[in-house]
């Protein structure tokens, strides 16, 4: 579903040139749950942002569902993003001025869905992530775990093929973290492809495969299911 070919990303300032991704090639198949791990500064988030079409590579190809999208302009990227990709962030990134319901509803608004249809879909989703009773609350009124569940609900509300999660448990205690990971696992089991950046081996164990990065390159790829089998 996602394939990168010799992906490079170089950040330039006046004096320094930093290579964030260095000829990185990898592939994620439809239905997979892949973790990306590595030390700070190894290029994990850059890779995730490029895959999520929030950032563009300096060179190389990004193939999304068989189409090279690396040359897409802003308009096409936004279009592709809102129909196919959901994002989950470490810091949740909910809009403080909108209620839980309104936050989750937002992607459907941008997809141009009608009001009654939105209401139906959002209510069902909030119940599914166990937060239906908090629909009218504002983000600050919720615990961190609850906020992340709202963020996940928002990420999957438009039924994207792909979810990109950037350290989704980074701001949560272990109990809430596990809740979130279980939610992601469920979604994966229902067919959603997930790519997750994480520092935590515990979280990585929920995924089917782990890709380790170092200095912008893939160093190892391990199947977690095999580890389990051993």
């Amino acid at each position: 579903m996602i394939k990168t070919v010799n992906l490079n990303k170089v950040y330039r300032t006046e004096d320094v040139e930093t290579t964030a991704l260095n000829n990185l090639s990898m592939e994620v198949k439809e239905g997979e749950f892949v973790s990306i791990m590595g030390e700070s500064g190894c290029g994990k988030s850059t890779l995730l942002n490029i895959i999520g079409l929030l950032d563009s590579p300096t060179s190389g190809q990004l193939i999304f569902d068989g189409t090279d999208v690396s040359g897409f302009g802003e308009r096409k990227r936004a279009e592709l993003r809102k129909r196919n990709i959901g994002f989950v962030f470490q810091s949740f990134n909910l809009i403080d001025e909108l209620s839980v319901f309104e936050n989750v509803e937002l992607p459907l608004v941008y997809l141009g869905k009608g009001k009654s249809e939105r209401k139906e879909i959002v209510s069902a989703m909030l119940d599914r992530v166990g937060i239906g009773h908090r629909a009218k609350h504002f983000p600050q009124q919720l615990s961190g775990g609850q906020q992340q569940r709202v963020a996940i609900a928002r990420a999957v509300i438009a039924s994207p093929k792909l979810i990109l999660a950037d350290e989704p448990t980074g701001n949560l205690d272990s109990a809430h973290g596990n809740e979130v990971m279980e939610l992601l696992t469920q979604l994966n089991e229902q067919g959603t492809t997930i790519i997750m950046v994480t520092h935590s081996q515990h979280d990585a164990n929920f995924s089917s495969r782990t890709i380790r990065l170092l200095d912008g390159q893939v160093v190892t790829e391990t199947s977690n299911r095999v580890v389990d089998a051993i």
Partner: protein
Amino acid sequence: MIQNFLKITLRNLARNRSYAFISVFGLALGISSCLLIFMYVFDELSYDNYHEKGDRIYRLSIVNNFQGQMVTALSNYGAGPTLTNDYPEVENYVRFRGGNGEVQLMIDDKVFPETNIWLTDSTVFDVMSYNLLVGEKRTALVAPQTIVLTQSLKEKLFGSEDALGKQVKVNNTMATVTGVMADLPKNSDMPINGLLSMTTMPEQARATFLQDWFRIGFYTFILFDQKPDVSDFETKLKAFEEKYVQPWAEENQIVAGQEYKITPIEEVHFVQGLDFDLPKGNISYIWTFSLLAIFILIMASINYINLSLAQGAKRAKEVGVRKTLGAMKGDLMTQFLGESLLITVIAAVLGLAITELLMNTFNDVTGKTFTIAEVFNPTMMFTLIGIILLVGLLAGSYPALILSSFKPVRVLKGVIPNEGGVGTLQKSLILIQFVFSLFMITGTILIGDQMEFMRTMNLGFDRENVMIISLPADTNVGKRMPAWIEQLENSEGVVAVAHTNVPTGGGTAELMFRVERDGVLTEQNIKCFFADEHFVEVLGLDMLQGRNFNAEIATDETQAFIINDYAAKAFGWGDDALDKRMQWGLMANGQATNDGKVIGVMNNFHFLSLHKPMEPFVLCFNPGGMNMLTVRLAAGDFTKTIAAMEEEWNELAPNHEFNFNFLDELLDQNYQQEQSMGKLFNYFAVISVLIAALGLFALLSFSIQNRIKEIGIRKVLGASVANISWILVRDFFYLLLAAFALTTPVCIWLMNRWLEDFAYDTPLHPMSFVLALLLAIALAGITISYHVFRISKSDPINALRYE
């Protein structure tokens, strides 16, 4: 989607109440100022725009050339009918005479002092679109002693009764009411309460006017058959002058000529510099205030822009999230523009409320009678919508552009563009606000300087403690007045009483004299005044040469003239003016009713407003039969004296109001336009300074919020409150100095142009500019002091923990 934007906007406003207040309140003040100013401007520009034949009606004015030039709004009696007769393109004419003086209307024994009662031709309703409610347009003002009243005067005199055919005594003439017309629209240059038929004027008087082309006393309006070519017609008027005026002048041995000019009726309200004109609007004030309105709106918009940008950091996350969720840049632009439009609409609603609050004060200052209902007329509504769109889109577009172009990857990582200091753009915008505020402060001070200068300038006479009393025009009552005047002269609090023909301080007549120059008598128009022998004493004038009038010298009445020193010099007499020959009441063949000599020279005194330079002036002796008294009261509290006067008056003339003015107040009226402009300038200065101060306050608090860690660290390292405050405010201080450097030359240039309107002006004091700067610094200081206080109270560790 729109609902979603609305929610976000309103919740954002609610969350950031203080900034929202500053943005919205500032915009509301700006919008309200704009509404008031534009109401004023539209009203001024709409003068006399209601005449159906307006594009064909022109007012005649005359440039009279004798020794010197006199340009008058008044014309002679003959021009209107003669032009109509001779030129096929002139369809009709109408003349107006009188009007500005007070007239006493009497119904039975009840007296109603009224102004704006005009003598006019029966053609008035053909030329002007005055709405005659009762009566016959063509005939109403044909017969002598007929009068048409306005609806409100009719109600005042007759209540709800039918007035047609009723009798009104106008001064000493009985007149029959032949019509009632609707009150004139407020935007009429010539106010009218009643119209008397021109034929009411005695036939002999009309004949005298008709035969003398230089006897001017009528506002004449010409109706053309179609819109004329002005310069073409004025050329024809040269031939007219050659055909009629020149032969008459030659016949009467007068070396003089006239140039006739025409002005479209809709422009008459703004014509300046004509003698004997009605009070006028000033087109340069219209421009000035329109510019002020636009500037105040810009100031308020700047607050909005600056605060939107300052809040950008808070909005960045929202932008990032929306973009990741698929929002296009266009969606976000629309959202932010919609937001600014919404805020402008809220501000406009608040602005309407502020307009209502300020309306009375604004009316007091401008002399208008606007009501809030007039804001809802189509022109003003169109203006308001225009303002909303302009401000909403202009003020909203830059923040919208900046906010919508935030990169989601960066803002979601917490990298906010421009975090920390105040950006160059924001500084430039603040500079604009400072420049404008300083300009307003400096302007206010400089206008005040000139007003004070005129108020305190030595006018050459003693303006204090002088009372002007008008005597009843009714001859029956007039007969009883000498007894009252005698009482007055003997009363304890009265120093001296003089009789005059017109109120002192209310302008002068200008008549044609002959004066001796190099042994030859030559015609010259000179400003003059008729008074008795007490006038010199009452005003405290000095006789420089010769003597005052003397009632006991029989020849003084027809053979004595007193001139001012300026005339003595202007006529080339210098110190040798006594016994020079002068004539007044000119007749043909060098004859005159008053033919005599200069018996005295008095000091120059400013008998005109200080807009006008000193001119030659003649005092003619007329000891009896005049209807004005000029009374010098003993200094001190004269309320008792006046109360006693009034009591005696009421006994003698119970039906006539005791009408008086103080000379200094009458003189102040000469500067009414400047005074109201000064006041208006003052108010708008306060508003613009307030807007700028609000903006500065808010921006500074953002700046402190963003630099809170820096402040904490500096405090920990031992910086004093003064150190930190200086770091925070020094940029603003330098901006203020830059604004001062930019404003001063502009102010000097503009003020010098304004002062050109005055023949006497005060030089621009450098101290006034310094004062303006100090005032601006003080105001900025007050704005900043709250923040300094907060910093001084805050614990450094809080600032660090905040991070």
